[in-house]
């Protein structure tokens, strides 16, 4: 007897009888028995399991959020309690893909509203209801660009998050799509000359960060100006930043993607976050992922359904725009609740506070004689030369309860002794001053 499996011995007997067999064994006549039992422990009660895993969890160190200066795609932000309370509602958590729309209006409406909010942030026409993460969203954006114009070369700023770029490469290579990186300038922005020189007739798309991996804000207008008409303009962005940065849609972006973890999702050791994916209405039939649309029921009452499913794998199979099936819907719900609670002014304040904290840290580091690597405008991250043996200093700080700016060397070997610093609204003057004592 098991608490998750309701069958009593009596019922099993009745069921076998109804089936017309004598034993459980008879159910497996087609199946070779290749194991007697797994080489695993026996099952346990929940208290023993809780105790065991609690003790395992204690091997992880939780930093006070205000003492975290690490970003690189995953950010510590204030998350209102209601986000957790409401998204933990088991009627959301234990539902599946809204295949039966009439009993899934909760899911569908929440996702429709999420899509609307993402369109508002990015200035685009249409959002899908989520991708796995920022990296796969970018990879799929590139594949989509190729579907749009049938060209096979992607020019990506070298300043894009390295894991995003590497993932894109993994996705593109088998389809014979080439990704070429574009240099950056001293300001940390894309090198327009290099970009210009690399654009050719086979260029499908250009990808830039807004802000990029170095925290630097690209000038989307300047870039757009040099793009030929049929090149797909892909912007990788950060949703919090978009409350103070002009929407990419205003600069003619064709696809805007990114990681949405910063909108009310805990860091979760990197996952699940959520990939957001937005584009223009004219491209929608090339778009991957699920889209929710508004419609009416037979009584004329407003309702929501999955739309344009003929793009998707379960109908289109090998000809689908993508293989994506399960997405990150629950994370989209968290995003939507977060944006509902925080509102437009709140989001801008989060961005403004993050900006201030980051610039305060940068100012003080410069005062102490540290050099910022780039002189372009940055949002809430920047790269600086952290000095010899920074990696050791970083580990020492961790022992003292500070998760310092990330050593960049591992992700980008050219950046020896450099660090990527990040502040958000959770970092206070006091915590920054404490960090600065180590410099």
């Amino acid at each position, binding site marked *: 007897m098991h608490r998750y499996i309701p069958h009593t011995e009596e019922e099993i007997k009745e069921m076998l009888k109804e*089936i017309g067999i004598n034993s459980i064994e008879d159910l497996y006549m087609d199946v070779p028995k290749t194991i007697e039992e*797994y080489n695993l422990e026996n099952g346990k009660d929940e208290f023993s399991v809780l105790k065991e895993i609690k003790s395992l969890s204690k091997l992880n160190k939780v930093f006070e959020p205000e003492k975290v200066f690490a970003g690189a795609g995953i950010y510590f932000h204030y998350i209102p309690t209601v986000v957790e309370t409401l998204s933990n509602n088991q009627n959301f958590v234990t539902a599946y893909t809204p295949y039966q729309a009439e009993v899934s209006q909760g899911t569908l409406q929440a996702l429709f509203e999420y899509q609307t909010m993402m369109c508002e942030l990015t200035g685009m026409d249409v959002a899908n209801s989520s991708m*796995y993460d920022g990296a796969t969203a970018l990879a799929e954006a590139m594949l989509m660009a190729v579907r749009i114009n049938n060209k096979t070369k992607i020019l990506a700023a070298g300043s894009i998050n390295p894991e995003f770029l590497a993932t894109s490469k993994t996705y593109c290579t088998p389809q014979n799509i080439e990704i070429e990186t574009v240099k950056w300038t001293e300001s940390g922005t894309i090198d327009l000359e290099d970009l210009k020189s690399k654009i050719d007739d086979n260029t499908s798309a250009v990808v830039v960060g807004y802000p990029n991996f170095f925290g630097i804000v690209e000038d989307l207008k300047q870039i757009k100006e040099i793009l030929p008409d049929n090149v797909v303009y892909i912007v990788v962005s950060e949703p919090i930043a978009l409350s103070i940065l002009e929407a990419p849609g205003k600069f003619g972006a064709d696809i805007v993607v990114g990681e949405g973890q910063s909108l009310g999702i805990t860091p979760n*050791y990197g996952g699940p976050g959520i990939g957001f994916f937005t584009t223009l209405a004219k491209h929608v039939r090339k778009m991957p992922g699920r889209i929710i649309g508004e419609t009416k029921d037979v009584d004329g009452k407003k309702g929501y359904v999955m*739309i344009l499913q003929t793009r998707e794998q379960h109908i289109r199979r090998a000809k689908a725009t*993508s293989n994506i099936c399960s997405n990150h819907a629950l994370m989209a719900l968290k995003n939507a609740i977060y944006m*509902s609670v925080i509102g437009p002014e709140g989001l801008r304040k989060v961005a403004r506070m993050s900006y201030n904290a980051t610039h305060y840290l940068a100012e003080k580091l410069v005062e102490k004689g540290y050099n910022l690597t780039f002189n372009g405008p940055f949002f809430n991250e920047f790269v600086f030369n952290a000095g010899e043996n920074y990696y050791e200093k970083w580990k020492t700080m961790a022992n003292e309860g500070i998760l310092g700016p990330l050593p960049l060397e591992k992700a980008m070997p050219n950046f020896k002794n450099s660090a990527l610093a990040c502040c958000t609204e959770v970092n206070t003057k006091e915590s920054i001053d404490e960090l600065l004592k180590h410099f």
Partner: protein
Amino acid sequence: MTIFEISKEGRIGFQLPDNNIKDFEINLPEHLLRKSLPRLPQVSEVDVVRHYTNLSTKNYSVDVGFYPLGSCTMKYNPKVNEKVASFEEFSMIHPFQPHETVQGALKLMYDLKEMLCEITGMDDMTLIPSAGAHGELTGMLISRAYHLSRGDTKRTKVIVPDSAHGTNPASARMAGFDVIELKSGPDGRVDLNELEKVLDETVAVIMLTNPNTLGLFEKDILKIAQMAHEKGALLYYDGANLNAILGRTRPGDMGFDIVHLNLHKTFSTPHGMGGPGSGPVGVKKHLAKFLPIPEIVKTEDKYTLNYNKPESIGFIRSYFGNFSVMVRAYTYIKTMGKDGLKRVGEMAVLNANYLRVKVSKIMDIAYPGICMHEFVSTCEKLTKETGVKALDIAKRLLDYGIHAPTMYFPLIVHEDFMIEPTETESKDTLDKFAQILEKIFNEARENPELIKGAPYNTPVRRLDDVSASRKPVFKYNFEE
């Protein structure tokens, strides 16, 4: 009502602490500064609470009732798993913390990988893929890398049965392969003759699920494996249906080279309205070097991450996958243990067969005889007789407070339901389902229009999805 209609200019739901830092001027060119704020809702906290609470009541979920969605394994999601996942030691850690500060997370992932290798009979595994389809893509990329590493560049095809999940062909295609659809035999299984016809030296992979989507075990699996390997192809296992064989046999033992799992199916992590899931990919030893980056390494005194795998297919997403989904699956496996997992498999198959027999008295079973964890039934006769389609019956089931089974899949059966009860449902629930189904069939015969008009008792009635796609509305219209 949408949250945008509740919104009121100037209302707030949120307050931030002061960080004691002065305002810095934003040194950006004017044209990069946002002119008007995004039209996010302006609501109070209670507005938000009521909005989402009321939305939640418009959802059907495993926690309110039977959810026999074939192929999706909608089993009960234990609440203790949610509690564990919420430990701040798991939820509030940054992916780039020093390894010394995340030994718990790394050990959990390492141990989970080991346990899943044992359950699947594979030699190594990556936990990084975020969903089943993502795992499939990973598996296809590994296959590609494997063949290329051997200089075998002619393998451009992947064989997929016509009963397969749509993700299979789509994933193969994304990895650059051409897809060969394999027609099922009259018994709903792989037809060895058909297979032989298409299996040549240009085939990179055969993708199967076993039991297959009809709920039937591929009895010839060892033979199929032999045929594949003789021709130099790899055999890929879609783990969607692993629940059926838990404790009995393993993909590795059947000759599969690559397997993906769905932690949100077999290992009971919640489906979250569609995700996040997790789709680990296991491989036999000869393929281990192709697994994606990073890999978790156990050394004598600690766990670390290795990014230096020259033959790896590379990154398939950022960071390490959906860690908090893994935490739930880990908790589940620890809870069930070898004895519990075996029981899961047995009771899942028992439930499916019991319900199959019950349902067979109402509608035809597509492939009669003992099934595994699910079965496919068809109402084609009723449709011919009354015009009532599987879709209509599905909608009528909603009126009776039950989620409909998967409809119109697999594609090789018509007007069909794919029914997967899972092991967490009781006999009473199955009996009740059969009763209701029978009642609906009677209703359909007596009054087909009633069924065609269903549902009646749901938050909205039947929705027009045709014009929703024809004239799509992608977002709220603020000018409304």
